[in-house]
């Protein structure tokens, strides 16, 4: 999606660099990309959405009027404030245990952000390690690792997560691990491709000539130069992890009630579809918005970091 891509020169800062006699300052490709991205409205909106969810997650106890687990059996299934029977005491209504939906949604942001961090963290570290080793050593190591990765990729993503959940047992922590594992192949492939590209470049050979060992070459010289596609992958992966975790919770394999996880909230609300539309509607909107934010930012970052699209 490059429709609102900036078409001007990437940045004024870079033009300054070319002036003779002026002290040059190098900018990392990431900063350059972020600079280019500021004109991409879709990406900026994505970033704002993510910031809002981050604030919700961090300050949940301050923002939420009630404890997400507090039940109030006198206030069961109260409609949202703007409907008859609702009140500003529970702005988005209550569920069938009289729990405040607004508070549960805010605490849900906390769970979803944590899911994103941990799942993507697992995939990032393991995937990057496997991909880097594969691309650096090539030969038989590469063949073994990549065959295994290809095998994992020949499963539908969600089905593999389901099988892993059967092994690990249903819980939020295990869902994060399972989602992390099924995301490893993507990171490994991206990193392997980038490492293969970088490997033959002069700076790597230079560092090797200076006596750098394999580990130093991989982690301090090659990997920092492979970060661009990894950052895109992390952003998109974050959104996907939130979505998959909600889906696993929805079918009862992820977060368990009464945890205020959005997918688990939907699973419980299913039975109320004929009676209380608000219990079903709001958690889904939260999932959609959170995932949308990460996808919008990820798309924008990809456009901004893609060398082919640069001026």
């Amino acid at each position: 999606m490059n429709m609102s891509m900036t078409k001007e020169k990437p940045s004024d800062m870079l033009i300054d660099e070319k002036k003779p006699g002026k002290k040059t300052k190098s900018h990392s490709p990431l900063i350059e990309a972020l600079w280019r991205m500021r004109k991409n409205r879709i990406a900026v909106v994505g970033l704002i959405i993510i910031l809002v969810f981050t604030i919700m997650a961090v300050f949940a106890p301050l923002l939420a009027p009630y404890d997400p687990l507090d039940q109030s059996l006198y206030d069961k299934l109260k409609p949202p404030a703007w409907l008859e029977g609702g009140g500003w005491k529970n702005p988005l209504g209550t569920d069938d245990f009289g729990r405040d939906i607004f508070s549960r949604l805010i605490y849900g942001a906390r769970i979803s952000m944590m899911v994103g961090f941990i799942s993507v963290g697992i995939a990032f570290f393991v995937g990057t390690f496997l991909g880097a080793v594969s691309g650096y050593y090539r030969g038989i190591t590469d063949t073994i690792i990549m065959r295994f990765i290809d095998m994992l990729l020949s499963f539908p993503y969600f089905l593999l997560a389901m099988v892993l959940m059967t092994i690990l047992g249903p819980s939020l922590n295990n869902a994060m691990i399972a989602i992390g594992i099924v995301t490893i192949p993507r990171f490994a492939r991206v990193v392997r491709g980038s490492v293969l590209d970088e490997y033959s470049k002069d700076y790597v050979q230079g560092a090797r000539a200076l006596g750098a060992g394999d580990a130093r070459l991989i982690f301090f010289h090659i990997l920092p130069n492979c970060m661009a596609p990894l950052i895109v992958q992390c952003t998109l992966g974050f959104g996907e992890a939130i979505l998959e975790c909600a889906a696993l919770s929805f079918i009862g394999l992820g977060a368990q009630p009464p945890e205020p996880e959005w997918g688990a909230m939907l699973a419980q609300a299913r039975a109320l579809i004929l009676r209380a539309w608000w219990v079903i509607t709001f958690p889904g909107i939260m999932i959609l918005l959170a995932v949308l934010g990460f996808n919008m930012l990820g798309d924008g970052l990809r456009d901004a970091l893609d060398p082919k699209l640069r001026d």
Partner: protein
Amino acid sequence: MFPTMFGVSVLIFFMIQLIPGDPALLILGERATESSLKAVRINMGLDKPLHVQYGKFMYKLVQGDLGDSFRSNEPVTKEIAIFFPATIELSLVAIIIASFVGMVAGVISATKQYSIFDYSSMVFSIMGISMPIFWLGLIFILIFSVHLGWLPISGRLSAHMEVELVTGFVLLDSLITKNWAAFRDAFWHILLPGFTLSTIPMALVARITRSSMLEVLRQDYIRTANAKGLSPLVVHYKHALRNALIPIVTVIGLSFGILMGGAVLTETVFAWPGMGLWILNGVYSRDYNVVQGGVLLIAFIFILVNTVVDILYVWINPRIRVN
């Protein structure tokens, strides 16, 4: 293709072994005596080393035997024959909706770049790939079934309808047997789940069609086609789309994996009696043979679809064949 299939079968077999719990205990129940448990283990070959068990599993697999379901005591293959057509029918409807709507939206977006239609279709498509489809299904039920009362809430057919099964595909069977009432009923039943399941592939197809068409439309032969006075419809859909098709076909092929994952969720929401729901029930009740057989079949089909996509490339683009 075959080495991957072999690898996948090994992986699934060992993953299933990792599932905690004792199959013998599952079959006999908590009150079973140690000696009867032992007898079942020996009978099932669970006392043998893993590689022997795997050999036996493969030996049976090539003969089309996936073992019996612990719950129903029926052969897994027999159950697959019941549930598989329902999922394939649903997936086919979803992929047809997704390809058609996605491609048309993508072509219009590309030919009218930066128009209102382009922007809204791109906004819809990014929403589509971010969509929790299990929620969308519930919202569809809420709107079209509960409030408007237009479409049925769940299942493949109304309770009073009966279709003589020939292929297992209800839509097709009702056509074959000229049972028009059942066909109409099945059609109304498949609409909501079909649309729900098509959301993500539709968005992906629209996005890739747009970007692929934008590349093709810049080429000289399109200018020539326009210059010689062909109608825009012919230029866009016959000349341009055909050459933009390779990435689109890849996405449609890859969508199959997404559909199979999505099928679990869609089938859960709409109580659609297909493979997804069947495997999920297998997961709940730790019915190893069902999970193993179901996942294996879907993984094999996934690999097969990817191979077919590779073959389709050659058909779509004869240049690949020449090279």
